[in-house]
């Protein structure tokens, strides 16, 4: 995957693994709760190069969204962050809040799940895009407006010159999400974060937005993180996939490797849960039990209580094992031959 358009002030298309746009190393996040401090993200590391999409997938409470929102530090004030997050070589975890605010919207664009909740109902669409542009760049209203209209056209809003003057309630869910994407891209960020951006949308609209992300990334060549609970949606877009369970990455690798030949039983369970993998007697495959929250994690493998392959050795803590382009957190990965999509 190679970008073709080098953006103004941005990073050019990736020419190799040399300098990732984003490097996350040993990221942990703790939340203060009524039951004390809980690690909701534990020791997560990954890189995202320009033009590359990294997918974070997992069920609710797995830590995927917190991992993503740790990057622009959009976390509750009681959150405590450890580890390193470097964007274009710059450490973000120690940055002042005002410097961070300058990066948000300029170098980091964010698209959230609920477009209607993310847009301000009191202002027109173009006003909201213009204010992002004018906050970060020294341009006049007319220039900002023209850019807003261009952006709305780029994300596929018909008659952008007219629709720019509309208020959010006049937009459908799909159109509002396109407007959100236009806003996230307004200052040509080098990193785009998309947190369940299609989950609230209808199927045909979801397909349109997925295609839009794919086209935009090809044209703009930014680094992208795509978060979803839906393995199929992540599979449509991601070059690399990180599967999270109970605050940890349990497996990561190239999209085709993770989906085609998973190394962790949880990934196999998620894939096998798709209805087309139902048993011959018509029963859907289940992962027994319910997902545990990070705070209730056992000392050993966190998935072991639900895992059909668990053995006594799984009761000891499992380190993350790196081999070539893959990582996994299963002590039996070498001996198990898990089932992928085929």
């Amino acid at each position, binding site marked *: 995957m190679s970008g073709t358009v080098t953006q103004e002030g941005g990073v050019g298309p990736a020419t190799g693994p040399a300098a990732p746009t984003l490097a996350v190393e040993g990221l942990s996040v703790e939340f203060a709760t009524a039951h004390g401090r809980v690690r909701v993200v534990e020791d997560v590391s990954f890189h995202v190069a320009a033009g590359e999409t990294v997918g974070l997938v997992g069920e609710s409470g797995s830590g995927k969204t917190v991992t993503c929102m740790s990057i622009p530090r959009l976390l509750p004030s009681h959150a405590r962050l450890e580890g390193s997050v470097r964007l274009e070589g710059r450490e973000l975890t120690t940055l002042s809040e005002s410097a961070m605010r300058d990066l948000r919207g300029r170098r980091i664009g964010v698209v959230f799940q609920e477009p209607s909740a993310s847009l301000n109902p009191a202002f027109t669409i173009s006003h909201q895009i213009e204010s992002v542009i004018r906050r970060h760049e020294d341009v006049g209203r007319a220039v900002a407006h023209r850019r807003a209209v261009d952006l709305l056209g780029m994300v596929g809003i018909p008659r952008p010159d007219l629709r720019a003057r509309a208020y959010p309630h006049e937009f459908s869910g799909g159109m509002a999400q396109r407007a959100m994407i236009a806003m996230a891209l307004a200052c040509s960020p080098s990193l785009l974060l998309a947190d369940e951006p299609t989950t609230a949308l209808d199927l045909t609209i979801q397909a349109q937005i997925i295609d839009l992300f794919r086209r935009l990334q090809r044209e703009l060549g930014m680094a992208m993180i795509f978060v979803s609970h839906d393995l199929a949606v992540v599979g449509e877009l991601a070059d690399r996939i990180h599967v999270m369970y109970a605050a940890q990455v349990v497996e990561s690798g190239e999209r085709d490797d993770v989906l085609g030949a998973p190394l962790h039983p949880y990934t196999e369970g998620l894939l096998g849960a798709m209805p087309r993998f139902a048993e011959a007697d018509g029963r859907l495959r289940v992962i027994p039990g319910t*997902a545990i929250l990070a705070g209730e994690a056992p000392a050993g493998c966190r998935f072991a209580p639900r895992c059909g392959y668990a053995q006594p050795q799984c009761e000891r803590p499992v380190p993350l094992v790196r081999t070539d382009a893959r990582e996994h957190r299963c002590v039996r990965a070498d001996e198990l031959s898990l089932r992928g999509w085929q």
Partner: protein
Amino acid sequence: MTETPTAADAVLEVDDLVVRFGRRTRLGRRPVIHAVNGVSFRIGRGETLALVGESGSGKSTTARAVLNLVPTTSGRVRLLGQDLAGLSGRDLRGMRRHAQMIFQDPYSSLDPSMSVDEIIAEPLRVHTRLSRTDRRARVVEALELAGLSRRYLGRYPHEFSGGQRQRIAIARALATRPELVIADEAVSALDVSTRNQILNLLKDLQDELGLAYLFISHDLGVVGHLAHRVAVMYLGTIVELGETSQVFEQPAHPYTSALLASAPSTERNRADADTRVQLSGEPPDPSDPPSGCYFHSRCAHIFGPCAERRPQLLDVPHGGTAACHLHDPDLWVPVEAVTSGTQEVVVDRDE
């Protein structure tokens, strides 16, 4: 496996159901929303019929109209042969015990101030005249059918996970021993691992109790697995109806094809992604539906009559019906297979 049930064995018969919203108010006339526009279907004992379609297609309104939870503008709904429209008060409540509903969100559909036994007993108090002891026995029976232990009777909803809450909602629906259960996106709020447990439970209950399901879902994978027959809705109308496997394998309506092609897939080769059939635009405003076929404004196969005449449901090769002029022998040379998800459709009109 299932033929369309005849009137005799149908648990639910819906004939030409129309639901319109909107009325004159002090602030002026609000536009009339044509939520459901002439929908007909039947569900037999032990059968699952799925309604699929996007927001605004009228699938939830259809379900609510079946239970008389929204007023119907015209048409007829018969539950176990009895017309619900003529009933009110005690008679209506008496009939409603035969049809129960499971809602999408197990967090908002359970009253947090009621204990589990109160929640499950409530429909029994409303719809039946069982004694306290009999009620108690029914509550325990329903709870155990839903796969929960009777130890939970005195607990409150906040003590349960999403999947367990949905089991409580299922127990509540089963308490009156209904013939028909309407599940409106009943598994959409659940994580995949929990979702399959609930779907397996629904299947087991159907096998055991002979329940009929009206199953509303946007998840085509789930529908393909669970439903015997499927009705595809668009803008308040059924555009295609047939056995699920047949409809999914050889869709006869262009909208069904587009919907199937929109489903995300882990199998799809990345190189194919850009060539799949893509439905452009968005559904039209239900207060101002297009002329002729409601789908014509987004359809890739539009021809002569589409903008002028509303197509009726016609028999199609897969054995079901579809409302599309492409299948009208009077208008057209019969078309073999209209579309299958990914292949390009070429209809040669000059032959």
